[in-house]
């Protein structure tokens, strides 16, 4: 027994010694110099900021980091360490990041990573005071719409991106394969799309006319946007919509929409004509258009840009079919400060620098000039070796006035963007509802069930795999059993409160 006691005492002494020693070593760090001041922030102490991003680490990342940290040391007396969560594991690992208790400063977050639900559960640091104080220039750059989108339960929990993106959506299609036919080249309606797909099918070059794969069809979203409707979640694969033209819009779901029959007829016809595979939902190839195996895909303008740069020989064209274009949520790329952050002030100062200083921005985003990228006369960038390093995976950093176009960007893109910018007005049409974020915390059970039913019954139905009448009735029954009425009621209340708040 005595021996035991002695052992415990010994152990305790050792741990305490260890703790005090490590304390000493930390103190020594503070001795290093550094005197630049940002927003009243004391940067005399050198710190290492830790950031988590989601992507696979590129081979050339180490040299880019080394170069970047040199600049950072000089400007802010700190260094940055980026930790990577690979695509294969992000779904499981990302939420655990915040429950593991690991200490890190910054992380990439986004709507599609459940930003608001994580914020509600206390994963992030409240930025009400920190953001304006330590990142004042960044704060000033944001529009009111963007700032409003960073709010959860009345407080800021993220710094949204400064890059405007648009809800424009539509067919990206190859024109090289129809050269020499009497195709009229029009692509403004679903009928035009069908005409194009018919012609592609008739050429019989073994290409699939329409790209659809296991993540579900996007034509249902397209149909709703095409008819001027707005998905309340603000992104694709939603099951609740409103008509933004109404004064006090009421939420509805697919089977309550009067044009759903027309849509299902179209899809049934396209399925019969063989525009896409009968087992498309089992097909995991998501790059059929890109690899020359499909002729048309419905997606956004960024995808169009990427494909055109990679394959100019396809002579790709793009057409936006969204009637009521608005800015996509600015929290679709965002930076969050973890609630375990050791240096939140420095992290925000770092972010401020990054989003206002072209030199720092270039070094962070594109890497080393002459080694990983080049800039041509028009200020467009070109990545020299995409296998080694492309651009940063911290997409939230992208800032409209600092961002460079990639060499080979199709010219009409900027014209499109100007057109959309001119169309969008704060508080009008769909843009009015962009800052509305649904809160599912009181209906998590029902919401989860609805999502699951939606995928199980709607996805096959919208591709014409199941019988139109029977499928729709079954979808309706299952949605009702899953609790769609309660979900709708709760979100409607939130929406009404949001509208009332706006008109104040």
């Amino acid at each position, binding site marked *: 027994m005595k021996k035991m006691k002695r052992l415990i005492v010994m152990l305790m002494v050792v741990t305490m010694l260890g703790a005090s020693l490590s304390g000493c070593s930390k103190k020594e760090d503070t001795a290093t110099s550094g005197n630049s001041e940002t927003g009243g922030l004391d940067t005399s102490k050198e710190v290492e900021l830790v950031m988590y991003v989601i992507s696979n680490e590129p081979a050339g990342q180490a040299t880019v980091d080394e170069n970047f940290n040199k600049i950072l040391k000089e400007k802010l007396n700190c260094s940055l360490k980026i930790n990577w969560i690979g695509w294969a594991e992000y779904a499981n690992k990302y939420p655990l990041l915040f429950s593991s208790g690991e200490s890190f400063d910054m992380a990439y977050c986004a709507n599609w990573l459940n930003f608001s639900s994580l914020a509600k559960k206390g994963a992030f640091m409240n930025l009400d005071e920190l953001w304006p104080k330590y990142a004042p220039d960044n704060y000033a750059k944001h529009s009111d719409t963007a700032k409003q989108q960073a709010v959860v339960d009345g407080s800021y929990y993220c710094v949204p991106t400064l890059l405007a993106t648009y809800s424009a959506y539509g067919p990206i299609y190859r024109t090289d394969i129809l050269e020499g036919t009497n195709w009229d080249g029009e692509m403004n309606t679903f009928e035009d799309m069908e005409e194009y797909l018919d012609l592609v099918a008739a050429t019989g070059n073994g290409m699939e006319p329409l790209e659809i794969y296991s993540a579900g069809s996007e034509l249902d979203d397209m149909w709703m946007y095409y008819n001027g409707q707005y998905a309340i979640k603000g992104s694709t694969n939603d099951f609740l919509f409103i008509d933004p033209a109404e004064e006090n819009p009421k939420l509805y779901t697919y089977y309550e929409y009067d044009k759903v029959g027309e849509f299902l007829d179209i899809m049934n016809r396209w399925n019969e004509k063989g525009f896409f595979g009968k*087992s498309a939902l089992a097909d995991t190839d998501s790059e059929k258009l890109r690899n020359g195996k499909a002729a048309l895909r419905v997606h956004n303008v960024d995808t169009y840009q990427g494909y055109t740069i990679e394959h100019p020989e396809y002579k790709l064209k793009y057409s936006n079919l969204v009637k009521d274009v608005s800015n996509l949520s600015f929290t679709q790329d965002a930076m969050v400060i973890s609630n375990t952050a050791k240096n939140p002030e420095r992290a925000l100062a770092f972010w401020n620098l990054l989003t206002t200083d072209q030199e720092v921005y270039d070094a962070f985003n594109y890497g080393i000039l002459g080694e990983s990228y080049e800039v041509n006369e028009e200020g467009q960038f070109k990545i020299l070796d995409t296998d080694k390093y492309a651009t940063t995976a911290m997409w939230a950093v992208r800032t409209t006035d600092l961002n460079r176009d990639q060499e080979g960007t199709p010219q009409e893109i900027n014209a499109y963007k100007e057109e959309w910018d001119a169309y969008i007005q704060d508080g009008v049409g769909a843009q009015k509802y962009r800052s509305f974020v649904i809160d599912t915390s009181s209906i*998590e059970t029902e919401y989860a069930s609805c999502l699951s039913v939606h995928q199980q019954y709607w996805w096959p139905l919208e591709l014409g795999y199941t019988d139109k009448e029977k499928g729709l009735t079954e979808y309706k029954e299952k949605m009702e059993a899953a609790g769609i009425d309660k979900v709708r009621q709760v979100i409607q209340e939130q929406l009404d409160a949001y509208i009332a708040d706006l008109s104040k």
Partner: protein
Amino acid sequence: MMKYFSSFVHEFKKNRPLFIMIAPMVILIFVLSYIPMSGLVLAFKNYRFDQGVFGSAWNGFENFRYLFSSGTGWLITKNTILYNVLNLITSQALAILIAIAITEMKGKYFKKISQSVIFLPYFISWVIVGTFVYNLFNYETGLLNSILESLGHESVNFYSMPGVWPIIICLFNSWKWCGYNSVIYIAAITGIDGECYEAAEIDGANIFQRIKFITLPSIKPTIITMLLLQVGRILRGDFEMFYQIVGNNGQLYNATDVIDTYVFRSLMQNSNLGMTAAATFYQSILCFIIIIVVNQVVKKIDKDLALF
């Protein structure tokens, strides 16, 4: 109390080497299996990141509700159990057949090569198997449909026929596991005394009689132990297998959804750790009940064959 303690000390002194040998395992199991069990409280909590596992507020059985709302709970529980029973029977029966066939083979090289070939699928990941399945069964370019077409038959859209999928899944499961499982049976058969076979042969028993009256009875304890071990996992669907083979084909879900895939699908979008913990808790409790019952039944029949 004191008496037990002193007898324990006595035992310890007597068998010190044995205690030392078992200590690492006991510690490992305690650290890896018993301590994490305290995390099960999550199933009854409204988890918040800033309050941690033990600081978050209790919310009763709220987390369990989603499993059973809209009636899916029973369907997926039923599917999970039926799939596991089916897979258990087919893969073990095949493994036994393979083990017997391989041990009866005479040619040394033929024996080694066929064993390796049967073992090989164990190393192929489900992601790749998923691609195999798609390339075999899809409507336009699938191998099966190409064969049907070349024989002048109509193509069959397997992805709209939920009924055939239990068979497909069962086939692939057996294909992947039977080689691995057979190794254990081969080891058991090798352990049988060769004299028994010689004696039987002299008495005029043919090969089937030898298998029936010598091999099978000798490996019966191994079979039952393997079955019991598998029964302990009967409510755990092999997530990878179902997810990769079935994918996003909603039409097949009623026939192929197991607890693990359902939970994954519905909670992907809102990262609720409490609800996920509730699903695991539900699986564990049911597994526990089933293993206890089955073990008791085995005990009734033959006391020596039960696990505990």
